[in-house]
């Protein structure tokens, strides 16, 4: 199921650990990236076979970690931190602003599938709060205006 390039990465990962199960989480990340940001049962079964673990084990792992998704996210996944340091300096307001701007609640995806919002626990950018991760990029000291600009640019 993995494309050829990614399969090479999977094989490399497997070679870095004493047993195949150890590579489960990194391989799930690759699988999720291959499948537009979320995991289907088919993919989970595939990864289970690769790592030689039961499917229920993979499902247990997937539902434990917040970064694994079993629903498709938007093309741009806005991860807004509202944890303690961010919430002290406007993270909560930033989230509310983003929700209003996109007219969806955190945990949801816009109908056109472009944006999804996730409310994050601490993402470790505390001294540059409030912070947002868009897909894989950190944006720090984000004001509501910055957010508007960013969303508008991404929409283009």
């Amino acid at each position, binding site marked *: 199921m993995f494309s050829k390039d990614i399969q090479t990465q999977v094989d490399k990962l497997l070679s870095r650990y004493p047993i195949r199960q150890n590579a489960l989480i990194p391989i799930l990340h690759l699988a999720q990236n291959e499948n537009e940001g979320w995991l289907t049962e088919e993919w989970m079964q595939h990864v289970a076979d690769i790592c030689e673990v039961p499917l229920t084990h993979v499902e247990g792992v997937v539902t434990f970690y917040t970064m694994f998704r079993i629903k498709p996210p938007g093309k741009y996944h806005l991860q807004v931190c509202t944890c*303690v340091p961010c919430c002290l300096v406007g993270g909560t307001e930033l989230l509310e602003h983003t929700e209003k701007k996109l007219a969806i609640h955190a945990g949801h995806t816009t109908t056109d599938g472009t944006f999804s919002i996730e409310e994050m626990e601490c993402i470790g950018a*505390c001294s540059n709060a409030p912070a947002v991760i868009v897909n894989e990029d950190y944006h720090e000291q984000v004001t509501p205006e910055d957010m508007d600009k960013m969303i508008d640019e991404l929409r283009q």
Partner: protein
Amino acid sequence: MLEETLVLFKNIRNPEYDKSLAGYKKSGGFKSLKKVFGMKPEDVVQEVKESGIRGRGGAGFPTGLKWSFMAKDTGKPSYLVANADESEPGTCKDRELMLKDPHLFLEGLMIGSYAIGCHHAYVYVRGEYFPSIKTLNSAVDELYADGLLGPNPLGSGFQLDITIHTGAGAYICGEESALLDSLEGKRGHPRVKPPFPAVSGFNACPTSVNNVETLACMPFILSDGGAEAFKSFGPQNNSGTHLVSLSGHVNRPGVYELRMDVNMKDIIYDIGGGIRNGKKLKGVIPGGSSSPVMTADEVDVLYNFDDLAKKGTMMGSAAMMVFDEDTDVVKLLHRITRFYAHESCGQCTPCREGTHWSRQIVRDFLSGNGSDEKLKLLNRVGGNMMGTTLCALGDAAAMPIQSFVKKFPDEFRKYYAIA
């Protein structure tokens, strides 16, 4: 103005610094590693013990002692795992190190690996740290290309591999045994102890789990006279410089490298430039969200492990979250209880039920349904998590609750139901 003491940030504070392998070597990198390869591993552990360094991840356990606990002659491989799952709210120091000077940390990891006889070290980086993961991976690639990793680094004959492992979003994986479960490819459930990781860790082999910052101190400690110098940076039993993550309502939030004999007040008012917008200080959460909160009157104290412990709180991961007079403490506590309810792994009873229940009670206050009874109940529910759970998350969730109730009772009264 109070100056930083630059050990870990020596390169980072240099605007000219090039974080590539060549740049790191040019600034004197890998000298300590070369020296270490000429020492006996037990002598390295001894040096680390003598430096007095205590783990920077939060618990403050002496690193040398931890390494000396590693089970020997087990016939199994030993592992060193760097804990880069930095997720304690307020903490953002390891990210700086990994992003801006990856080779310093990696050299420390290599020194540690040699000290405990580990031939394959893992770095468990939290999954959200995409930029750090990229930086570390390219740094490791550079090391392999240079021969510093692989069968014969620096001609030592000491086979050493490093793998960067990505987590996937779980605060509890910062707890060392949960981290090991996660590294093994499982749900991150803390393990029953004993056995401790030094006896049965990664894949049931002897393992030491050390924080990124702790490991990044190793090149300095193992340099000539390093251990002695390191010791001199703080009062007895609180050795070295450390990275303080300063956040919240200060004018200059940031990560600062400080000695351990600096007063907390100076960190807020001098380094941090005081409270923003000319407001007054209301309180500080001194060491990550799990540490007991301090009021404005209590901040005249040296910022280190022991002095904070004497004040009934803790330095934890040295993450100071400062809040001003306008802050709604109940809302703040609600955010903290929400965090622990979200991050509890759920396996053990007091934490699974207690984190959620306490969150419900605080939320009830926010809806204006508070009362003396509910405040007592909140305190009791928090207290019941203390010391009764399998790992320290129960304590971590309990300490803020109990300290907020104790130190800011009037704030809760604002949310009492009107009879």
